[in-house]
């Protein structure tokens, strides 16, 4: 039997709002026109692409203390990969994915480092890309540029940032950046940060088969231009300069490797409004792509 009824057009509009779109990271419900997740501030474009285009990107975490160089690393990594095709093909997905690259490279071209990433999650840049390693199928990846201070706060006070915990729970691997210049000067804070991070991750998901003990982690000593020994032998450098992290890695992580990377050839300081600011004197990236290549290779296994 068929019944006929008159329904106002507003109902069709409201119907869209009635259907919740789950955030790709935290899975909380959002309206169809939300730009950012109302809970974790992850871009909803990821969820729309997953729904409409049947694309399910893997999550890669890029972590490090404040000032370790995450924004610079991600920006120049994206730029290097998008400018060359000989090692790995790379395409940014969505305009928001180019913003990080554009911002970082504009700063470096002016002989400045990118401004520190603010702690507000709605201002974080996300990189969603499609990569095709040599002799492998293409892969979709997401790499957010978390603020270092936010990561430190989340480690010390879990759930301080709603996006970090679910993201790390679902991440397929991580790149952990450690400030090589700090280590070279004898500062042990990088070692402590990395040890706390390892503890946090293994508590988050300690499953020996699918948890962090089995996931690949690339440790990258950034600003390695400050130390030739670090550039020549990052594994040996880790053993000597970050002994705490080294031991944790041996005991807890099955798939990890140490790398050294640098983006600048030399640096100096400028005084801006009475504050001493480091400025790069020339840009000559080294060891930037290698950790990413290794991680993509490991994730694809």
């Amino acid at each position: 039997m068929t019944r006929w009824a008159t329904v106002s057009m507003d109902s069709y509009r409201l119907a869209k709002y009635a259907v919740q779109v789950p955030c790709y990271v935290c899975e909380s419900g959002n309206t169809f026109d939300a730009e950012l997740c109302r809970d974790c501030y992850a871009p909803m474009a990821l969820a729309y692409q997953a729904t409409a285009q049947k694309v399910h990107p893997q999550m890669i975490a890029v972590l490090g203390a404040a000032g370790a160089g995450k924004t610079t690393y991600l920006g120049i990594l994206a730029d290097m990969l998008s400018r060359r095709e000989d090692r790995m093909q790379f395409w940014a997905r969505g305009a928001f994915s180019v913003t990080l690259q554009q911002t970082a490279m504009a700063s470096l071209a002016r002989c400045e480092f990118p401004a520190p990433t603010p702690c507000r999650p709605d201002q974080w840049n996300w990189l969603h890309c499609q990569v095709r390693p040599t002799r492998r199928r293409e892969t979709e990846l997401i790499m957010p540029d978390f603020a270092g201070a936010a990561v430190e706060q989340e480690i010390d006070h879990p759930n301080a940032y709603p996006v970090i915990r679910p993201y790390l729970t679902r991440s397929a691997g991580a790149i952990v950046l450690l400030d090589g210049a700090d280590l070279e000067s004898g500062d042990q804070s990088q070692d402590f940060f990395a040890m706390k991070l390892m503890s946090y991750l293994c508590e988050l998901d300690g499953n020996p088969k699918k948890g962090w003990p089995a996931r690949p982690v690339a440790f990258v000593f950034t600003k390695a231009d400050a130390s030739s020994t670090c550039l020549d032998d990052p594994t040996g450098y880790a053993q000597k300069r970050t002994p705490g992290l080294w031991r944790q890695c041996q005991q807890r992580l099955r798939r990890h490797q140490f790398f050294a990377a640098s983006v600048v050839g030399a640096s100096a300081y400028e005084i801006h409004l009475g504050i001493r600011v480091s400025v790069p004197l020339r840009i000559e990236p080294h060891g930037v792509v290698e950790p990413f290549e290794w991680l993509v290779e490991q994730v694809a296994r």
Partner: protein
Amino acid sequence: MSVASRSTIGGLFGGLGSLATKAGGLFGGRRRAVASLAAAVDAQTSHAAHASSARESTPGVSDTHALIEQMLAQGRFALLLREQIIGHLTRDQLERAVVALDEQMSLVPDGDVLVGGWRSEADGPRDQLTPADRIVPVEALYLDRYPVTNRQYQQFVAAGGYEQMALWDAEIWPGILQFVDRSGAAGPRSWSDGTLPRGQEEHPVVGISWYEAAAYARWVGKRLPTDAEWIKAGAWPVASAGARPRQRRYPWGDTMDRACANLWGSRAAGIVPVGEYAAGVSVGGVYQLIGNVWEWTYSDFAPWEVAAGRLQVEGPMKSVRGGAFDTYFDHQCTCQFQSGDSPLARKHNIGFRCAIGACDLASVADNINSGDGNRVPAGGEACVAEVSV
């Protein structure tokens, strides 16, 4: 060793000593460097005299001849073309020295050159002068056509250059012992057992500090070019009355062409031999001013900005120019862009080339006197080359 022989060699290098005094007057603030050159020559004298004493039976003229031949083989022709020395060369030796000068060095004419601040290219191209810009007059000079190669530097190492203290600035004497290669022998950082990497004879030498570059330059009778001289050779300024000199952004023109220089994104993935990328040669015929390796210059890094307190550096820094195989941005490898590094830094991508002022070279007679032992008259009259353009 005969008395005549000692007298000849003594005269040869005594002349160099007085040359040093004269050059000190020409270079002004570089007196100490020139004094080191004179001492280096003295060291070379005693070394040669010692070597000669072992060959008692060799006639004196042959000793001088052999020494000059050795210096020619080592590429030290610039020493032989000094005013006080040139008279001791035979016609053949002189011709070979002049040919070597012509083949290995390029004449850069005198004139004004615009030298910008260290960030001038990063701020983008400008039409107006800024407070950081300086118009600097440059005397005519000869600049190496190619960066110094591993093979050339090997001769310096083999000749005991690291032990000849007179070649080195006194301030670095305690530090010379740390200029070692992978095996701990004296030499560039990437070498081993004092020997250059196999197959890289014609690659530019890298992994050397500013002090090592300066010592080598003294050993061959040259010096490091100043910033202004380096820019002049690459940018080849053309003066126009009442306006800033018109200068090239790159030696080959104003537009980046990665076929002309070995930079990040060029076909090569690392350092290449010095004779490659001929398309990027400068107007004067100088190779690889841009790309392949950065080049130490004699000048300090950003002296005006540092003096004004706008830029702070940890310790002294020397200027490097030209970009390297891994330089990422096009505007950081222009003739005008300046970067810097510690004079003690021994980086994988910093090399150097040498220069010598045209006024430091002697004149050469058009009609070389061949009537008396084929010797050129001391203090010959004609010029090696016309240097004013």
